[in-house]
């Protein structure tokens, strides 16, 4: 299994509907555990049941799929294990270790990335479902390597301690701001509650998100 091609492709494909629609995303996350168990029991490379026709092409061996997607603006064309999560693909094959594995069960938010502009848990997203998707990780949050205003706000407010949940908090916070869920500290708290910070930086995380949402005022 190797990276077939990795060419810069900064512009997303115009007009093409995202195959990872909300409906299929829920289907994918909803079946993640069950499929993993089924694969574990039968050992036959059970393939997730697709809810769309856009799903990646299954290869002849029945246990892998070819997917092509934009990762941080670059085209990735890969053959992936059907059991692989987006999180493990990022971390173990593409060496993008900024996205963290905290629970591998969608309960902590440490693996939050953006798929087609929406925040998702990479641990609950099958890599095989990514064909045609646009994925942004903490490494690709800003195209030029500058800090995003929310990253600056995290440093300024000291909204982190150990830093392990921080990439997920920031990806979640950027989406939270984009979604407009920043009307009050209470609203931010509610919409940032999918990201656990065991060091307990919540008060400062809310401050950092609020500061960024209001343009630093």
């Amino acid at each position, binding site marked *: 299994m190797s990276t077939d091609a990795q060419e810069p492709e900064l512009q997303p494909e115009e007009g093409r509907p995202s195959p990872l629609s909300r409906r299929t995303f829920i289907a994918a996350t909803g079946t993640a555990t069950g499929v993993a168990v089924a*694969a574990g029991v039968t*050992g036959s490379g059970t393939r997730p049941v697709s809810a769309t026709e856009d799903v990646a092409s299954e290869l002849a061996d029945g246990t892998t799929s070819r997917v092509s997607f934009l990762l941080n603006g670059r085209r990735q064309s890969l053959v992936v294990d059907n059991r692989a999560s987006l999180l493990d693909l990022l971390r173990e094959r593409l060496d993008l270790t900024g996205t*963290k594995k*905290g629970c591998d069960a969608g309960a902590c938010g440490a693996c939050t990335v953006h798929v087609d502009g929406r925040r998702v848990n990479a641990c609950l997203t099958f890599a095989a479902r990514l064909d045609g998707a646009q994925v942004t990780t903490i490494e690709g949050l800003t195209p030029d390597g500058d800090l995003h205003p929310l990253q600056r706000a995290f440093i300024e407010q000291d909204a982190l301690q150990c830093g392990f949940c921080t990439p997920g908090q920031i990806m979640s916070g950027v989406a939270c701001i984009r979604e407009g869920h920043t009307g009050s500290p209470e609203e931010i708290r509610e919409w940032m509650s999918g990201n656990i910070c065991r060091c307990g930086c919540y008060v400062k995380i809310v401050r950092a998100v609020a500061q960024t949402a209001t343009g630093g005022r």
Partner: protein
Amino acid sequence: MTPQPAPQPARQPQATVGTPRSRVDGRLKVTGQARFAADHGPADGIDGIVHAVLVDATIGRGRITGIDTRAALAAPDVLTVIHHGNAPRLPYRDNSFPDSIHPPGERLRAFQDDHVRFFGQPVAVVVATTLEAARHAARLVEATYDAEPPQLDLVTAPAHEPDVYTRGDAAAALASAPVQLEMTYRMGRNHHNAMEPHAIVARWDGDRLTVWEKTQWVADPRNELAAVFGIAQAAVRCYSRFVGGAFGNSGRTWVHSVAAALAARELRRPVKLVLSRRQLYFGIGFRPAYEYGVRLGSERDGRLTAVVHDVRGETSRYERHSDDLALGRMLYDTPHFRQDVRLVPLDVNTPTWMRGPGWSTTATALETSLDELAHELGIDPIELRIRNEPADDPATGQPFSTRRLHECYTTGMREFGWHRRSSRPRAVREGDWLIGMGMAAGAYPAESAPAQAHARLGADGTVVVRSASSDMGPGTTTSMAQVAADALGLPMWSVQFQLGDSTMPPAPVHALAWTMASVGSAVQATCDRLRRKAVALAVGDDRSPLHGVPADEVVVRRGWLHARADPRRGETYQQLLARNGRTHLEAVGGYEPPEEIRYSMYAYSAIFAEVAVDARLGIVRVRRMLGVFDAGRIVNPKLADSQAHGGMIGGLGQALLEHTVTDPRDGRILNANLADYLVPTNADAADIRAIYIEGVDNEAAPIGVKGLGEVVQVGVAPAIANAVFNATGRRVRDLPITPEALLMPR
């Protein structure tokens, strides 16, 4: 006529210590570039990593009768399955304190026999070329067992002989006390649940082992793995630059690290092993559950005459983990005191320290019992505490180095609006919500341990300081750079502090709130020595503007060495080194705690909480929390605040959310995940604030600190519990206080 005081050496101005600085590794952390144990791989020159997954026992106690690995080995990409039937016998040299922090007993060994000591104990490790394949194959390993019923009941299981502390005659004093109270508190088992799961990458190069390990003490994996594999400590190197939270669970090296190193040795390939979140509930330690009996005797005016603590705490059958439960001996002026602590060996993994270890446990019992006494007597809880404030340490008779607990109370009362609290419970209501306020006090020992550091000043005027400490989140990398910068008279940006490598000068375990006192004092001593070397070079150099100035009269500011009396007379480090043809100057130094401890030294907390309890649903919301801390000198208020928030939120979890539920039949933890074992989320943390009582404690440490990381959680849970009582009139003596407990008919 007073004698002329001896001239004092020039004191370095404190330009960065005490100021709110942003953490120096913030950029690495917010960009995802900080590399934690499991992040290590090709980018670090570790190629060809293979993945290990543990297979866990599914019985609570017994023997393994067979392990069928055929299906696992037949699965694609699987390299090996190691278990007690095929694992080599490992030397397992003794590795006891001080080379390790193993508790007394026999440590758990990796695949050396057929014994199952607890549910979830690793019985095999599967290695494959991909993580997906290893995880799959781990499910294909079929282990069979001869199971026995495990002993899991803290209350009924036979206990070890008690550890007894006594002063005065508590039984007699209690019997004759005008006011007597007797309560039993129960505290559920807490799991650290640091966001970073335990992880290790292990690689052998011939007979040398390198590990990238999650640890609070890089010396421990080195010493333990050297002992297990029967090699020299110098043959093992441990890196741990970033630690994704730990809170005590990474002090000792757990058995999975041995499994990974063993697999790497057998396969001659680097192995990565990451525990699953579920495995973290079985494979590493936890804050033990306690049953904590308290009997109080007092005068009518609230002065305590007798206190008796009867404690049962869980440990494993193969090791004796004991927390330090000494808070009750020193917090109040109690002439007659007796404490019996019984460890109860159960068929569980060995517990370990968790934030505020022991002290937060005792605080829950002691501080709730004080609240009960205050209510019984109709005395304000703070007034009751002030009436029992000791003049000297009641346990040792020693004077306190500093004890500003009274100021913590008065500051907290003012800042929190304590006067708005109704002394009558269940008196304040807002719609469905019952509102209450509570408070509690706490303390934690201000201890220190030997530490060393190395500092190197380069020709470009920048400095690298190194010590084998660790930084699990408090910001050690930042605060040490602050101490070094002031000692050397440099701006912070030209000083770098490095840690997390076992070949660096030794530091103690990054725990017990003693890193600042220990490593901080070592860094200061080392950098003072380095500065004095530079000054000596300058004043002895006839080409230096400082030639002939007494060395004690030279200070350094922003890299400019100058005469104290004449700031223009001086030069930079760069000029000094260049003129003398030096590429660098370096110094090693260290800190040793004094042999004789003459003072009673503690950090103190006073915690205030306001809660709202839904009168119909029993839901508890913490509306406000204030922590007032006497922790000596605060090196970085910005980072200190983060630590304090974290401790208070940890205490909120202890009070209201966190406990494991165990199946009594087999020891299976039923809520071994973050959806069912509840930890505080952002929505649980509203208005949280910390205040520090100004002060320096030079008895506790040369740099004046008393330690902050532990005391910030001591007293939080009882403050919340006391607020719940004030809101509802219901005294719940079991933690966590769940809605079910509050809904139970009286």
